[in-house]
């Protein structure tokens, strides 16, 4: 029984390997060639060179097709093998049922397990929940793509929001002449923090997706655009990250400004008296001293961004993404891809699933994960702040 199960797992992995890696790679090439083919075929007149190119594309498609077929056949054969064997079992009521072995995921006898085994099993389940792809329309399996999507989006968002927010704060605090205008800008920043997040989503859709993405597509991917398959002109992890960066930039600006203001006047004057320029002072002394405060602001921004859902629906999140934004295919990081997100995953499972009863445990578990993530980020912010306070408490400023 167990050896059969192991065989089933082995086959599944084999199918996965073939489908995702080898066939995936062929599909990607096919997709590109197909795009060129359709573009060339749609032209009313073709030059000789274009005709030659088209012929070459046809040839290569044929080659790829011939590569593809044995792989597909192999995969199909493995799938057939999966359903070859059936397991018959009887329920406590005496009824006899049967199931194909290929549909089995785990087999264990809960009543026969002793305590340690139960504990191990418990953690195994948690691990598979965290590390596996979803199955059965997200109602089964794990949430790994959603965790990964949330993570990559947060990282991208931080990368975008940090320089932007920090530079804005440095300008406002250190360089701008404190007057009516700067006051107005500060008020605007605080108001920006209060704008409903869906408004940011709409802005992101209009500005990033349609305007910027559309222009990028027109310039860099003209053929695909003409064929109606936008690359950047549709929602993706990049635009989602930038939208969230806009949403969280007030948090970073306010935190950075406070951190900069906390750097003592004495240190600044000391530096200037040593013949340092203003920028040298900021670079060598003010920023390092303010770094923990800036970091705190950034972590808070990440916590806020990781929990947002509404704007993401408009700019690139999907219920099920066939591939992660990072994989083994060149150029490895695919910023234009749609992605999955914990928050949206919860919404999808809870309200869009065909069988919401069945999805309930998944909803709760995913919610717990998301809450834990946000709590962890906030805790990190508090810890950083406390460490900073301790480090600077002893100073005679």
């Amino acid at each position, binding site marked *: 029984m167990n050896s059969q199960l192991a065989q089933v797992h082995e086959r599944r992995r084999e199918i996965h390997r073939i489908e995702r890696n080898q066939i995936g790679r062929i599909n990607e090439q096919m997709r590109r060639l197909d795009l060129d083919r359709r573009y060339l075929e749609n032209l009313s007149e073709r030059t000789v060179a274009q005709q030659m190119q088209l012929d070459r594309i046809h040839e290569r498609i044929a080659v790829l097709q011939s590569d593809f077929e044995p792989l597909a056949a192999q995969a199909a054969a493995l799938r057939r093998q999966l359903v070859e064997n059936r397991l018959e079992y009887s329920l406590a009521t005496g009824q006899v049922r049967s199931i194909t072995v290929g549909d089995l995921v785990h087999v264990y006898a809960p009543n026969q397990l002793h305590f340690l085994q139960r504990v191990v099993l418990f953690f195994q389940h948690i691990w598979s929940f965290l590390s596996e792809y979803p199955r059965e329309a997200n109602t089964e399996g794990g949430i790994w793509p959603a965790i990964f999507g949330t993570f990559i989006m947060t990282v991208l968002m931080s990368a975008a929001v940090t320089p932007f927010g920090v530079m804005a704060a440095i300008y406002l605090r250190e360089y701008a002449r404190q007057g009516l205008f700067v006051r107005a800008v500060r008020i605007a920043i605080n108001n920006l923090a209060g704008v409903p997040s869906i408004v940011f989503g709409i802005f992101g859709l209009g500005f990033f997706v349609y305007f910027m993405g559309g222009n990028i597509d027109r310039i860099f991917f003209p053929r695909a655009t003409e064929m109606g398959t936008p690359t950047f002109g549709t929602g993706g992890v990049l635009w989602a990250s930038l939208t969230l960066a806009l949403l969280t930039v007030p948090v970073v600006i306010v935190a950075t400004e406070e951190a900069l203001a906390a750097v003592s006047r004495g240190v600044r004057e*000391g530096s200037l*008296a040593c013949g340092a320029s203003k920028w040298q002072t900021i670079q060598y002394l003010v920023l390092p001293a303010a770094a923990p405060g800036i970091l705190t602001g950034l972590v808070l921004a990440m916590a806020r961004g990781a929990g947002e859902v509404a704007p993401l629906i408009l700019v690139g999140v999907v219920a099920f993404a066939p591939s992660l934004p990072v994989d083994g295919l060149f150029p490895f990081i695919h910023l234009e891809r749609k992605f999955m997100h914990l928050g949206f995953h919860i919404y999808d499972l809870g309200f869009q699933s065909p069988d919401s009863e069945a999805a309930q445990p998944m909803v709760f578990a995913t919610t717990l994960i998301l809450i834990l993530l946000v709590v962890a980020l906030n805790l990190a912010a508090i810890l950083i702040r406390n460490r900073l306070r301790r480090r*600077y408490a002893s100073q005679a400023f």
Partner: protein
Amino acid sequence: MPDPAIKTAVTPQASVTTSDVPLRADYISVRNFNFFYNGVHQVLFDLNLDIPERQVTAFIGPSGCGKSTLLRNINRMNDLIDGIRHEGDIFIDGHSIFDPDIEVISLRKRIGMVFQKSNPFPKSIYENIVYSLRVAGRHRKSELDEVVERSLHAAALWDEVKDRLHQSAFGLSGGQMQRLCIARAIANQPEIILMDEPCSALDPIATGKIEDLIHELKKQFTIVIVTHNMQQAARVSDRTAFFYLGKLIEYNSTEAIFMNPINSQTEAYVSGRFG
């Protein structure tokens, strides 16, 4: 305009070899100087005084008399404040510090400053001292090592910290921190050291060490010190200027100010019977 020969005499390197060149009695020269905050609020009124080279000149007077403001004008620290305005001029070695051709940064490189609260940077002792060299783009290790040792010796701190140069400056005591700040101020071989109440936060022992240090440093630097402590001014300075309400009331040798002041307000202030 000053004689170029005198100009070379005041750079510290040259002064060692040409010690026979007489020291200037008007090394820092304040002329008809008025100073305003917010454009209209006048805090200094028509000041005229000459500060001699390589002597200690003390500014005394009650709080708000403008002594610190004048001190901070000498290295143009007041430039940081919005809405300031000045009339008249200040000359260092014959050159106006407000000359538009003179960059304020190069001015400050020639003038070290020590503040009321010791303000070491959140860096190691070593990095604190070489800071002024680093911002001037000098990073050669042998040079920095030499400057650290020389400055710490000059600040009478070498023996106390030589084994922990690369530890945080915040591990030092208050007096040591202030001496570190002095070492930092002299690291880049300035000509002038400005001290803004350098001992007001220190205990008497640490204060004594700083005062002895000032006495040593005046052989090499022109020192201007602002102090609330009249005994301190009497002990360390060669000349004393008494300010009251933004005006220079009396400026004379320290001996004359403390033994036989001409002005009755000076007399009242130095004898503690003021106001």
